[in-house]
């Protein structure tokens, strides 16, 4: 197996001894460079744990994660995590947040680079605002822009839009595709929203309940922008929901 990200037989338990709770029960997968993979699964099935392991924030009990063929055990700027609750620093301005990851030289004019990405996510004019002055959707854009500035090869997104209202979350989907059009990244998206997965991903993996394994995989080959009401995608949605036991 070769790919940008290769996961081999990952297992993870919470706790130890006979009371230990198996969360991830042997997951193997491979994600190609530039591929957009979505993972859906019932809540509490361990999908967030799986992503924490893949991004290096948690260690598996068994198995390994290879990125570009190298075993990875720690988080690195190569793959940036965008989480549900957001982690934009409230004490820094938008621009300072975007410049946060640009440490070391070789980035040229950091402020200009930050402003370029701020404009890209539609935050032109808010460079000097503090996060408390922004709406939830704008904060999410800051978070995405802050990740993009460091030119990560991988984006790990853990239910990135679930804290937004329905309309804003639809809007952010389209925005995300537009941004990815400009700069191709490998993306791993964790979501409980099947439509979101169908709209965005090249491949969708359905996880089983705890201890989780990959239960089914679907490819989505339609061109963007996708129309969710088209018969093929409706059929796909039905199939995924059936896998999820709906």
């Amino acid at each position: 197996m070769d790919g940008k990200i290769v996961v081999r037989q990952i297992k993870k338990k919470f706790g130890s001894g006979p009371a230990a709770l198996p969360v991830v029960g042997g997951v193997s997968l491979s994600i190609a460079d530039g591929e957009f993979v979505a993972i859906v699964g019932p809540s509490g099935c361990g999908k967030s744990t799986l992503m924490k392991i893949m991004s290096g924030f948690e260690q598996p009990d068994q198995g390994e994660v290879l990125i570009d063929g190298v075993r990875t055990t720690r988080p690195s700027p190569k793959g940036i995590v965008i989480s549900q609750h957001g982690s934009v620093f409230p004490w820094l301005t938008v621009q300072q947040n975007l410049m946060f990851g640009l440490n070391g030289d070789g980035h040229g004019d950091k402020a200009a680079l930050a402003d370029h990405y701020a404009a890209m996510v539609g935050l032109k004019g808010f460079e000097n605002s503090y996060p408390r002055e922004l709406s939830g959707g704008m904060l999410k854009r800051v978070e995405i822009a802050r990740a993009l500035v460091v030119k990560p090869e991988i984006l790990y997104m853990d239910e990135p839009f679930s804290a937004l209202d329905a309309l804003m979350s639809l809007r952010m989907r389209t925005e995300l595709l537009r941004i990815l059009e400009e700069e191709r990244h490998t993306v791993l998206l964790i979501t409980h929203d099947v439509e979101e997965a169908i709209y965005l991903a090249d491949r969708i993996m359905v996880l089983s309940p705890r201890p989780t394994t990959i239960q089914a995989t679907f490819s989505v080959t339609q061109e963007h922008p996708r129309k969710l009401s088209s018969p093929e995608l409706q059929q796909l949605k039905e199939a995924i929901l059936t896998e999820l036991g709906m």
Partner: protein
Amino acid sequence: MQKLKNAIPSLSLLAFLIALWWVVVMQTDSLIFPTPLQVVTGTMELAADGTLWEHIGSSLFRVGCGFLAAVLVAVPMGLWMGRVDAAYRTLNPIFQIMRPISPIAWIPLAILWFGIGEVSPIFLIFIAAVFPMIVQTASGVHTIERRYLHAAENFGVSRATLFRRVILPAVLPEIVVGMRIGLGVAWLVVVAAEMIALYSGLGYLIIDSRNAGNRYDLVIAAMIIIGIIGLMLDGLMRLLEELKSVRWRYGR
């Protein structure tokens, strides 16, 4: 205008209490307890010959020195204890025991170690202010949300950047709260500390006025001045809370 309106109830209560005080003193023909007017004239007297400013000045000087020393020790110590678990586990129980000991209890030791002079009250103020600030700073570090530390780890920033851009600004609001508490107790303690024979200070003024011929007008004048200065010091600390780098903590 609205502020003035909000102040009306408490100002009226104050006026009422002063009037009550006046009436009671007049009715009882007290020889020792002064009327409000006597307190005012006594204060004017002290202000005119300059001793009042000297007393205020030396009290503020002692608080300034002791408090500053406490900040310089407490903030680095609190940050260190917040970051290094072994330091926290070792030092925290000791500080938790030291903290509830009233600084007044330290007076005999202060006299033993530093004698009667400028150092003793400054030491007492230091003792009073340093523990609450250490505790507040360390707990501030502990309550930094993990998602911010994770984000910093994800971007692979250096330890210096992590400290300067994440930990310090995240804890700053807690440090300011600690400083406010610290300055409050420092001001409480300076007055008590000055009651043991010195030559100046508002605490000294209180004891000296009583000893030197029952000048209760000056005792009460000093008490009121202590209250007003304490309020002003607290107001000064509140200004710090308004800073942009601290405001983020207080909601949208």
